[in-house]
């Protein structure tokens, strides 16, 4: 339960950074932290105390294996989510570079003033 609470706190930290920071790069960092928190929460929900990875080793008894592994489904979805997050982060960074080129700053407030 403590782990859930800490994960939500991590999500809150990232969300605060995303909304309240002025620097575009800091906002990207905030988004990356939010991604971490969501991925961690999903994997944590699938965890079962004292059980191992969902990989059948040679010599394992399939019946014991099914009763002794963590939930593989959230893991498969988080794996996709991590790689998509990487693609999205790269797209965002390209946009950040474009904004910097256009306005000469990464500060959103100054961008507001420079617009037009």
């Amino acid at each position, binding site marked *: *339960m*403590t*782990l*859930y*609470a*800490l994960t*939500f706190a*991590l999500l809150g*930290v990232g*969300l*605060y950074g995303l*909304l*309240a*920071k*002025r*620097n575009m*790069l*800091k906002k990207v*960092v905030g988004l*990356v*932290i939010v991604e*971490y928190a969501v*991925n*961690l929460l999903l*994997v944590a*929900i*699938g*965890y*079962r105390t*004292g059980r*191992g*990875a*969902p*990989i*059948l*080793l040679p010599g394992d008894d*399939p*019946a014991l294996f099914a009763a002794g*592994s*963590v*939930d*593989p*489904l959230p893991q*498969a*979805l*988080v794996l*996709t989510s*991590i790689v*998509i*997050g990487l*693609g999205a982060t*790269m*797209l965002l*960074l*390209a946009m950040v570079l*474009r904004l*910097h*080129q256009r306005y000469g700053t*990464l500060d959103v*407030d100054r961008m507001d003033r420079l617009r037009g």
Partner: protein
Amino acid sequence: MDTILVGFAVFLLLGSAAALAMRNLLSAVITVGLVGMGLSILFLLLGAPDIAITQVVVEVIVVTVMIRVTTRTADEERGRPRSLVAVVAGVGAVLVLVGAALAAFASLPAFGASRAVPADWYLAHAEPATGATNVVTAILLDFRGYDTLGEVTVILAAIAGALVIARHIAGDGTRDAGGEPDRAPQTRNGEEAPHA
């Protein structure tokens, strides 16, 4: 075991807060890379070696690219926070989140006591049905193959978008990422300023 997990989670929390609080952007980016490494150890402890491996390598690339962008833009963060409205909005969003979290906790099974029914089915049937001993791969590529197909499409779109934006940044109409940068600018569309 639980204390180790909680310890790592506290490390992640402190590292993230430090990354957001730092003035120097380069330090912030490197700190967030450190947080990602800690996260991958946590994944490993939670019984997810697949995700741990992916997280480590993804972290390396993200940090490399972000350092590249940071040194390129070379912008120190200014002192003041954004504005009162933004800070209030940020704190408000976090409070709403905390409320939602409290409501969600009520319906979640306790940590480590997942009751998900599909899990047992997948664990029992993955190897006989697909021949893969790694159940995560069996789900990813076989049972839920359509998800992966969509995911591949999303990455294609994201990277294509980044390429298009970068072409705009370069502004010289080179055809792909490997075009010669020294080629004279060509007019590709009406947006480019006329040259002397």
